[in-house]
Every structure is written in C-alpha cells, then in structure tokens.
C-alpha cells in the first residue's frame, strides 16, 4: 500500500502536536459520566428517591434537551443526564482534530512539504483518522473505567462509553468528507459543525415529536444504544455502516483531486475592489460575512424548530401528577412553556457564544497569519483594526441572539395567535444572554492583548462555562465556583423576574477586560 506510506510517522507527528490538547479533551469528556453517576448516588441513595424525580425528568422540555429517560435507575439517569452533552463534545473534539490534521495542513502548504517526502496520497487523511480514532478510543476507555470505578454495571458502562466513542467517529467521518470538498479549512469546520448542530436538533424534534427524526441523527442513535436501559447493541452497527460509507466517499474524493484543491472549483474573482472594501471594517466584513451568514441560517432553523416544539410541550399529556402540582404552584402550564423557553434560550446563549469566541479569536488568527503587518504599515491604527473585528464579535452575537429570539417567538406566537408579542418577548429574553457572551469577548481580547499565544484558551473558558452551567450545581460545586460562569448570573427569562443589575455588572466586566486587552495590545510587539 504505497498510498499509505508514511502514515505512522504522520500520526506520531499529529499526536506530538496535540499532546496537550487531546488528553485534555479526553479527560474532560471521559470523567463527566463517572462524576455524574457518583453524584446521583449521593443525591438519591434509594430507589424511592429516584422514583420521586422521574416526573420532573420526564417533562417535555427536558426530553427535548437530553432525550427520553429510558429507565429509572442510577445508570439510566446518568446516561440521560450526560448523554447528549458528551456525544456533542466527542463530536466536536473529533471534527476539530480531523480538520486540523488534514485540510488545515493542506491549506497552509505544510502538507506540500510533507507530501514531497516518502508519504503516500492517503497518508495524511489516514493519519488524521487514526489520531481521532485514538482520541475517541481513549475517551471511551476513560469513560468505561470511570463508570466501573464508580460501581456502575459493566454492560451499561461499556454501552455509554461506546456511544460516546462512536459519536466522535461518526462526526470525524463527516468531517473527512467535508475536508475534501472545500479548499478552506474554516469552511470545512463550519459545514461539519453545522451538521453536528443539525443532528442534535433533529433528535430534539424526534424525541418530542415524530420519532423517525431521531433515527436519522447520529446523536439520536447514540441515545438509543440505551446504556443501562436494556442495551441495544445493534445500533452500533448503524454507526459502523455510516462511518464505512462516509470514509469510502472521503477516500474516493481524495483520490480524485489534487493536493490543495477542493471539489468546488475557484471562479474568477473581482479584478478591483468595490467601494465597500475601503477600510478595516470593510475588510473585516469580507472575512466574517460567510461565517455570520451560516450562523444566522443555522440559528434561525434551530429557533424555528424550538418554537415549533413549544406547543407540543404545553399540550403534553404525559405529565405526572406531582409535576402538575409543582407547576400549579409555579403558575400552571404557562410556567411550563416559559421554563422550556428559558432552557432553550439558555442553550442558545451558550451556543451562540461559540460564534462570539470564534469572531474574537479572528484577531489572533489574523496576527499569526501575518495579515496584520501590511495593514498596520498603513495609516490604520492598531485599535481601529482590532475594533473592526470586535464589531462582529460584539454586534454579530447581538444579531444572532436577536434572530434566535425573534424566530422562536414568532413561530411559537403563530400557534397561539400572538406572533409579534411573543417575538418581542422572546427576543428580549434572548438578548439578556448578550452581556454574558460579551464577557467571553472580553476574555478573548484580554488574552490576545496580554498573552497572544494563550488566546485559544478562550475556548477553554467557554467550555468551562458550559460545564459549570450544565453540571456545576449538580456536581456539588459550591456557589462561588458556579458563579464564575457569566451565564450563571443571567436571569432565567422568560418566566423569572428581569433584573438589570447582573447584566450591568457583566457588561462592565466585559468592557474592563476588553479595555485591558486593547491597552496592552497598543503597546506590545506585533507578530
């Protein structure tokens, strides 16, 4: 197999380059299930304790978030709680890793240098896939060992670990195909991440509506491996089939194209700049518009799906008496809708913040690519250049949250004959997330100014926020730890009382971080 020559060497190179990043991913994802199981054991020591919360867990809003609860048991509850989150994280880890070692290397031209040595045509793709497979296998291993250590039954532990590992591989295979289609790594990552979001969404729709929708989503499959709830091992076969088909496609596409080329051909571009390309802001618009447009479309689709799902929740019949009692005290079925909407808006806030971080880190990406030097050698000042990109981090995030709120509210409002009123109400709720997202902009700018090499840690900050908000209270972390996440301070709108104080504080913190970063950026060396 000469086309695979050099694969081992390239795999070792990839592992060397990722020697900090990948173990971090593996440990964070792998420990989550065991920690959750251990905590449930503490919270609900008896079967009766467990049974008591079933009604709450079965509420449609929580089903939309995490899928159905298949069995009331320690394991069943654990799998339900961590399932969707770990599947998505494993998918994300796999997508980012695969694209980084395939298309990014190719786009940078490094693969050309490597390709001139004794390295086969398929070596880079294979090495990328091997690296991802090792990471996914590692995640699975840490998961299974952790769960066994926490005293969980072996078959279920194996099934949950398998579901996490297979989710990772499924999205790696999708990424492998996307990496062949476009010449830009950024686009390939964007398309695959959109697929990941779409898969989660399909599952959410399927779990609260027509079940078949869950069966076209790999995340739906992973949930239906049914760890600790009568394992359906054959679902692993679905994954195997999908991965095999996608990888075949990826290798066939790879064999048919040149190094550096995509399948979508380059068209002749404009011979001269239009009037809009006259300053840093015009340039930033050219660089951000594709990603922003993709996000607007994705967010609008997700919002439409969520808005559509609300009605199913308010008319749900499978609500336990206990839940109804709770609801009556909270304000009846309307409270149930608001609770669902608040949860959805919370998730949207965290998700859209991924765009915020990505847009903020464009600053560093531009600097390390050497694009800043020629710009700053003109009359553009450093601050003006930085603000051109931050316009998108700050304003783009606002746009996305507004789109999410407006579409969710309008789609839900159409069903209750109040589209405008609901659109305004949910837009307000959605925009309340904005100051928290801006704190991440602030963190990104501060790192960029003070220690540019550590700017990527902004992603770690976002993932920490997600884990703190989704699992912090539950894992028994003290309040101050959870409060480290800016999202913990956002009022749970709609439903909760609107308070402006925390939002003002968050905006202030974001501004301070931003000013600190920009002040330092003005005085440091470029490059």
């Amino acid at each position, binding site marked *: 197999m000469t086309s695979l020559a050099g694969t081992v060497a390239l795999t070792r190179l990839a592992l060397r380059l990722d020697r900090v990043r990948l173990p971090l991913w593996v440990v964070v994802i792998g420990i989550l299930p065991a920690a959750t199981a251990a905590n449930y054991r503490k919270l609900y020591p008896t079967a009766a304790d467990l049974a008591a919360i079933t009604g709450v867990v079965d509420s449609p809003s929580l089903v939309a978030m995490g899928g159905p609860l298949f069995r009331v048991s320690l394991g069943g509850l654990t799998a339900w709680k961590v399932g969707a989150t770990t599947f998505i994280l494993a998918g994300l880890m796999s997508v980012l890793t695969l694209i980084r070692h395939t298309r990014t290397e190719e786009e940078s031209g490094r693969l050309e240098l490597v390709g001139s040595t004794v390295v086969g045509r398929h070596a880079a793709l294979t090495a990328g896939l091997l690296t991802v497979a090792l990471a996914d296998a590692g995640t699975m291993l840490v998961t299974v060992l952790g769960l066994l250590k926490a005293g969980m039954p072996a078959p279920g532990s194996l099934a949950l670990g398998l579901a996490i590992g297979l989710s990772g591989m499924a999205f790696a295979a999708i990424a492998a195909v996307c990496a062949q289609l476009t010449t830009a790594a950024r686009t390939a990552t964007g398309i695959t991440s959109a697929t990941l979001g779409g898969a989660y969404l399909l599952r959410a729709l399927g779990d609260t509506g027509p079940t078949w929708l869950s069966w076209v989503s790999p995340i739906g499959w992973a949930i239906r491996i049914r760890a600790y709830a009568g394992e359906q091992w054959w679902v692993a076969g679905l994954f195997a089939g999908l991965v095999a088909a996608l990888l075949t496609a990826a290798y066939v596409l790879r064999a048919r194209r040149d190094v550096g080329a995509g399948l979508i051909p380059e068209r002749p571009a*404009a*011979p001269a700049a239009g009037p809009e390309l006259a300053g840093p802001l015009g340039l930033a618009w050219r660089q951000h518009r594709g990603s922003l447009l993709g996000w607007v479309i994705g967010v609008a689709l997700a919002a439409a799906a969520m808005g559509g799902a609300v009605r199913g929740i308010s008319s749900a019949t499978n609500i336990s008496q206990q839940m109804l009692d709770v609801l009556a005290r909270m304000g009846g079925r309307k409270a149930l809708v608001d609770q669902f909407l608040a949860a959805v808006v919370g998730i949207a806030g965290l998700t859209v913040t991924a765009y915020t971080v990505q847009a903020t880190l464009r600053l560093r990406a531009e600097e390390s690519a*050497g*694009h800043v030097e020629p710009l700053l050698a003109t009359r553009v000042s450093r601050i003006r250049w930085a603000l051109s990109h931050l316009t998108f981090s700050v304003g783009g995030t606002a746009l996305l949250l507004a789109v999410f709120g407006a579409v969710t509210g309008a789609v839900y409002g159409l069903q209750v004959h109040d589209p405008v009123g609901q659109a305004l109400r949910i837009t307000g709720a959605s925009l309340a997330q904005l100051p928290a997202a801006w704190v991440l902009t602030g963190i990104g700018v501060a790192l960029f100014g003070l220690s540019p090499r550590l700017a990527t840690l902004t992603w770690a900050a976002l993932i920490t926020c997600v884990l703190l908000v989704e699992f912090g209270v539950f894992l028994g972390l003290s309040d101050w730890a959870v409060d480290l996440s800016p999202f913990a301070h956002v009022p749970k709108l709609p439903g909760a009382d609107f308070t402006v104080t925390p939002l003002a504080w968050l905006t202030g913190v974001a501004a301070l971080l931003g000013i600190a970063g920009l002040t330092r950026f003005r005085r440091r060396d470029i490059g």
Partner: protein
Amino acid sequence: MTGADAVTVTGLVKTFGTTRALDGLDLSVRTGEVHGFLGPNGAGKTTTLRVLLGLMNADGGTARLLGGDPWREATTLHRRLAYVPGDVTLWPGLSGGEIIDLLGRLRGGLNARRRAELLERFDLDPRKKARTYSKGNRQKVALVAALASDVELLLLDEPTSGLDPLMEDVFRQVIREELNRGDRTVLLSSHILAEVEALCDRVTIIRDGRAVETGTLAELRHLTRTSIRAELDRPADGLATLPGVHDLQVHGDRVSFAVDTAALAAALTCLTEAGVRNLVSRPPTLEELFLRHYVADRSAA
C-alpha cells in the same frame, strides 16, 4: 544634509528573550536615495524594518522616520510610506486586485493609471483569489500595491524573492524610474548583491544586529582590492615585493593579482615599466566585499 535624512537609527537594541536581534544598530538613509540594506538571513534586517514601522518597540537606542517617532506617530507616518514585507501573506478569499485597492486606499489613495501600468508590466492577473497565487505572484501583489501609492518612502524587505529573472528586471526598471522622480526614498533590504549593486547609491551591511559597513559603493570598494590581469613584455620584478599586492600568480608573461586600492598607483607604475601589452582590471564586486566581511568575521568568531 543629516536634517533631511529619511531614516535615522542610532544604537538600536531589540532583544527577544536572551537573543539580541539588534545590538546597537546604526543606519541612516538620505532623502531621495536608494539605500541597500544587506545582510545574511537572521542578521536583523526584518526586525529593523518592523521597528521602523512601529510594529515593534525597541529596547534601546533611537529611531527616527521621516522626522517622526515610528512608535508613537505610527499612523501619521504611515500615510507617507509603503511597505512590502519579506514574507507576503494575503487574505485567501480576496482577489489580487481587491487587495491592491484595499492597501492603496488604506494608505490614502492609489494612482489608477499607475496601478494598471504596473499590473501590465509585472504580468499579474488581478482576478485570481489570493489563495491560488504562487509566492512570486503574492510578491507582485504587494509590490504593485506599494509602487502605485503616492508615497515618499518605500520600505522593501527582500522584494524580489520569488520573482523570476524577467520580473526582477522589471522591478529594477521601476525602481530606477522612481528614483528619477527625485522625491522618493527607498530602503531596500536584500541579500541579492547584484540587485543592490544595480540600484543602490549607498549601502549598509549588517551582521548580528550591528552595522559593520556603511557608505557609497565607491567608498566601500575603496576598502577592498581590485583584481588585475595583465600580459607583459618583460617580467615585472618589483611586483612581488610591493606592499598591498596579494595572491600574485605568474604564468610566463601573464600575471594576475589583487591589489589594495591604496597601492593601485604603485602597482600600475610597476606594470607600465614592464611594458603592458594587455590589461584587464576589475573593480571588486559587492559580492567579494560581502564575502570578505562574513568569511572574515566567521573565522574570527
């Protein structure tokens, strides 16, 4: 004339960790001249240009650019200069034409006729996305953008790397034309000696972050030797003992040797006395000058 210097650098120091990239560099570029900035890779040429552009803050010494402080007055000074980086990276999604216009506008305007003329002369297709350009074509984009701007000072960092010989020639012609306008100053960093020799009025040679030689080419040549080959009627007896004559080789009636500039007159007298039938004298090339410095310095170190 010092008051009108476009660039004045004295005792410039820049350290990265424990490395001293610039170690007391002196450099002065007179207004209206093409100044060659020579040195091997890693000598500190690019670091100097970055300090001059205000992209880096020096740790010691002073730098003045067009009468201003390059760090504090960066943006106002940048209206009056254009820069071509040594390693040109372009925004992959923009076309060459778009980038030329963008950079031109950011500098405060672009001469459209000049732009069209330069595209033609450099044979550059502005319709292609930057990600499809070769290294040479990326270099052309940066060159056209810089040369079509109406600025006083051009800072060029190894501007012809990646260009083919034909394009190098176009580059030389264009720079010569610039010079004839009389109001443009060019600081040309390079390690291509023929290019510097063809274009530059004065030269500064740097090594390990320090200027080791500076002056006009004539002045620099003065410091070195002329090679001479001659056919003689009779053996030139005094030649071997003449101070300042080196590497003397005699093959029958033919002699060849190198002679210090100070001893040139005496050597010629000696040859004339022996009856010159044919004489070829070659001034020292910049290359010899350059090599002498580096080889000598390296063996000393």
